């Protein structure tokens, strides 16, 4: 625009150029200039300038409104063309939308999971100031964490440290698996029975629906139940003041609370006042634990004063602990774990209140998977959109000729991708809500989309769609908008070599991610299989465990055993204080030539070792022929012999603290057996005999039968005959042991699903790209056929390119996969070697999937009639 000497001041002119819509700019600028010139000629330059600026300021709102108005009109137009494009190219749209929506659905589900995991215990109003007491024992340099503390510790802490405002002890004896609970007319067996100090209602947020918070748990024999239980036992009638018999002890209901939310690290249905434990009815449950500093069986929660640092407080504990625990010798320490960390950071704690604690690593793993899947889906989109460039070229050319600027085109394409993403998002939401129940069943989880998380999820996803729409759309937008109208309208569009490379790089990344997921899933599957099939050092098959929790069972054991042995199918019956996979206590032992130290120990009877099929390596089993075995004999495992440095262990002296006459000696060594999960190394363990008529926790029965159902019914009958009022409960040892890997199994299943989905998305992408490439090469194929190429050779030609890409992505994925799976396997003390087989299999799978996705297109192309192909266009 050539401007003469009367032109507007530079700044004003520049400003107007930019705010006035292009379509009226010429005319409006002319008006400005005309009036400006007139004023400056007739009155002077200064008033003209003043007029101009006033006029500009007054005009800005209108001009901006005008631009905005037409912007919206243009947006409508983009929307229309976007929808038309989608409709016109059905296959591409289908692949694109499917890929994106599956990817987004995965992300929704994973977001749900992560949101749930991170929300644990955050509903407690005072959550920030609640800490849990965790014991740390340092043993040969290794820290052992345990969530259970002695009952007197907690109130003593609160007496001595003013920083602690309130304390709660919670008791949940894991050795009682089922509680018999009855009201007037109903009896059920329940699991979630907890005992707690009255302050539990003050420290935690468990709102009472009925009853008074101040009084609910103060009296002994009072119990609070959840609404669900109130319904179950009392229907519609008011449960308050009614009595419940729990484990044979009469209690009175003093409160009803809302059901404990699923994102709570401990979930009770019955909460009994802790003082009730003093009553005679619970004596066989609690023994003398209430006042015992040596019995670590309670969970302690502290409410700290606002602003108190837990780390500072821990430091102050040192002299206190020394006084009570002789910490110099035992290496005992106390750690205050923030309440909100309980769920995700307690994975290696023993004796925990919850069995469903997760690990923060899984939150990371799933976040990574979600991220990968999103990347794969985005790459798909980028690839397909750039692949369609040839078709788009004409549109771009036409728009450019009509006067579209590059910025407008970029806006248009970005807009298109965002629209597509929103459509995908809608479908993804539907998909996710359909998949949610399936996932819940598979993973044994309980996620839902509800009012609590919907906003977070929607917000996240909207943000994600915008960002993704932008990220996935920006490359195609930049790329497409560079087309020269002349070339693109002539339909001659030769993609530059660099572009093809870029597209291939994307496919490589996509496949590398899928292969990574495949390898991860396979490795975890193999490790799990290994966990379940490894020789544990004892027979886990055909062993039935019966948890024992009543004095009568102890007294009648011998008669029950005799009755059981009448059956030829029953091979032997043993007793023990624990079983592999169950919690195991430690007691102080003094081995010859060593110091006192707490070591794992288990009380067993004569028949336990044969029943379990544990092999004796040296010496002998406990025997009835030696009367002194009951008091003096110990059997240790290989690990213990090794730790004590005993080449020949038999005859060595070993004294238990409770051993009055101090005559103990080792009579045998058993081969190492896994009494804990394979996450942990086999540690030294000492077996000794159950004293006569003493309590034990499990009865084990070794059976040999095809007809387990029949036998179990028979055993049930015997049980019924002896203990008519006790429920007959049993478990198969192998099943019980498999539960040790529940978290991993869940992870395996869920990541399996997501791996599958990522493969689907990636192969959709390859399918789309293949169809594009074959289309591009139609003429080439035609010519090759004319020159004598067979259909076969053409199919191979087309597949080869993709196979090369997949092989390349393998090379990238392998080291990463190796590193990650290797790290994951470090969680297990006993683990598989990462075999090359897994890697090869994953690669093979990837190649097959690629070939299948390409096959349709290449076969179609190879059968093309050359005459048609060459006439193409």
């Amino acid at each position, binding site marked *: *625009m*050539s*401007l*003469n000497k*009367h*032109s*507007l001041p530079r700044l004003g002119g520049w400003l107007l150029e930019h705010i*006035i*819509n292009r*379509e*009226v700019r*010429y*005319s*409006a*600028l*002319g*008006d*400005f*200039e*005309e*009036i400006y*010139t*007139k004023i400056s000629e007739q009155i002077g330059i200064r008033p003209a300038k003043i007029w101009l600026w006033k*006029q500009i300021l*007054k*005009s*800005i*709102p*209108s*001009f901006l*409104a*005008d631009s905005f*108005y*037409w912007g919206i009109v243009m947006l409508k137009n983009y929307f229309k063309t976007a929808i038309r494009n989608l409709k016109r190219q059905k296959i591409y749209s289908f692949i694109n939308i499917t890929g994106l929506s599956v990817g987004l659905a995965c992300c929704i589900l994973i977001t749900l999971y992560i949101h749930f995991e991170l929300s644990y215990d955050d509903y407690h109003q005072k959550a920030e100031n609640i800490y849990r007491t965790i014991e740390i024992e340092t043993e040969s340099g290794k820290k052992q964490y345990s969530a259970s503390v002695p009952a007197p510790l907690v109130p003593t802490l609160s007496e001595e440290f003013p920083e602690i405002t309130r304390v709660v002890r919670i008791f949940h004896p894991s050795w009682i698996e089922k509680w018999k609970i009855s009201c007037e007319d109903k009896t059920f067996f329940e699991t979630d029975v907890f005992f707690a100090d009255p302050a539990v209602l003050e420290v935690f947020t468990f709102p009472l629906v009925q009853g008074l918070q101040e009084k609910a748990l103060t009296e002994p024999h009072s119990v609070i139940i959840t609404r669900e239980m109130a319904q179950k036992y009392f229907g519609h009638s008011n449960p308050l003041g009614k009595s419940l018999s729990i484990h044979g002890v009469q209690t009175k209901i003093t409160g009803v609370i809302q059901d404990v939310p699923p994102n709570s690290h401990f979930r009770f249905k019955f909460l009994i006042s802790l003082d009730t434990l003093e009553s005679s009815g619970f004596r066989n449950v609690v023994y003398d634990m209430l006042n015992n500093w040596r019995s670590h069986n309670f969970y302690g929660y502290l409410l700290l004063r606002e602003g108190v640092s837990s780390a500072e407080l821990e430091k102050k504990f040192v002299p206190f602990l020394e006084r009570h625990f002789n910490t110099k010798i035992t290496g005992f320490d106390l750690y205050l774990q923030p309440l909100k960390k309980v769920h995700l950071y307690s994975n290696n704690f023993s004796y925990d209140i919850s069995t469903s604690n997760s690990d923060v690593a899984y939150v990371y793993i799933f976040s990574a998977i979600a991220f990968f899947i999103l990347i794969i889906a985005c790459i798909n989109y980028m690839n397909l959109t750039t692949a369609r460039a040839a078709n788009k070229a004409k549109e771009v050319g036409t728009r450019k000729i009509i006067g579209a600027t590059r910025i407008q085109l970029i806006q248009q394409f970005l807009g298109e991708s965002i629209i597509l993403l929103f459509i995908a998002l809608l479908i993804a939401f539907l998909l996710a809500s359909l998949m949610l129940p399936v996932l819940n069943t598979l993973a044994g989880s309980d996620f839902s989309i509800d009012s609590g998380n919907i906003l977070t999820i929607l917000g996240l996803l909207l943000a994600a769609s915008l960002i993704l729409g932008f990220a996935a759309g920006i490359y195609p937008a930049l790329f497409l908008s560079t087309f020269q109208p002349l070339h693109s309208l002539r339909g001659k569009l030769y993609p530059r070599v660099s572009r093809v490379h870029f597209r291939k790089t994307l496919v490589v990344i996509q496949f590398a991610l899928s292969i990574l997921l495949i390898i991860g899933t396979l490795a975890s599957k193999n490790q799990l299989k290994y966990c379940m099939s490894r020789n544990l050092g004892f027979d886990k098959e055909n062993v039935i465990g019966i948890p024992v929790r009543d004095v009568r069972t102890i007294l009648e054991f011998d008669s029950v055993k005799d009755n059981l042995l009448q059956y030829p199918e029953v091979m032997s019956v043993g007793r023990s204080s624990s079983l592999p996979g169950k919690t195991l206590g430690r007691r102080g032992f003094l081995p010859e030539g060593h110091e006192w130290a707490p070591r794992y120990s288990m009380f067993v009877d004569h028949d336990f070792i044969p029943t379990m099929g544990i092999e004796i390596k040296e010496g002998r089993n406990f025997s009835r022929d030696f009367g002194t075995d009951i008091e003096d004999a110990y059997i240790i495992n290989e690990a213990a012999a090794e730790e004590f440095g005993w080449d020949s262990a038999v005859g060595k002296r070993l004294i238990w603290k409770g051993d009055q006459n101090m005559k103990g000696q080792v009579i045998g060594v058993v081969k190492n057996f896994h009494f804990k999960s394979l996450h942990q190394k086999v540690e030294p363990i000492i077996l000794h005999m159950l004293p006569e008529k003493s309590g034990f926790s499990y009865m084990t029965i070794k059976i040999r039968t095809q007809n387990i159902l029949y036998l179990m019914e028979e055993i049930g009958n015997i049980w019924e005959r002896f203990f008519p009022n006790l429920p007959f409960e049993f478990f198969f040892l192998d099943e019980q042991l498999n539960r040790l890997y529940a978290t991993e199994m869940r992870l395996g299943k869920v990541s399996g699903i997501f791996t599958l989905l990522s493969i689907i998305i990636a192969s959709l992408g390859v399918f789309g790209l293949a169809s594009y490439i074959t289309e591009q090469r139609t003429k080439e194929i035609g010519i090759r056929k004319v020159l004598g190429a067979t259909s076969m050779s053409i199919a191979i030609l087309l597949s080869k390119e993709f196979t090369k890409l997949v092989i390349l992505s393998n090379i990238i994925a392998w080291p990463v996969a190796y590193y990650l799976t290797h790290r994951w396997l470090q969680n297990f003390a006993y683990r598989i070697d990462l075999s090359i087989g897994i890697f090869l299999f994953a690669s093979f799978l990837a190649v097959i999937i690629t070939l299948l996705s390409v096959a349709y297109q290449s076969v179609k192309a190879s059968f093309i009639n050359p005459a048609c192909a060459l006439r193409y266009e």
Partner: protein
Amino acid sequence: MKLLSRSEEIVLLSIWKLQGSAYGVTIRKQVSKITGKRWSIGAIYAPLHRVEKKDLVKTIKGDPIPERGGRSKIYYEITPKGKKALLEIKKVHDSMWVGIPSLEFEGK
């Protein structure tokens, strides 16, 4: 067809009144005269842009003149479609006012 907005109507009527001498500057003058208010140039061009896009007016380019920085005057002329739209809005106005009691202030 949607009815004209008030500002569109005013702009169109001004163009019609100006009969061939309607371009930005004169239109603004005419509009300000009709309404008794000063309109900014921006305020004129927003409705003008819309009626132009709706084909209610067409533009005719005059000769370049120095006062406009070497630009041409862009003359606006009403199309038949524009006339129809004006007639339509007039009908609406007429029927709107039928039977309406006088609004004049009595004291004045």
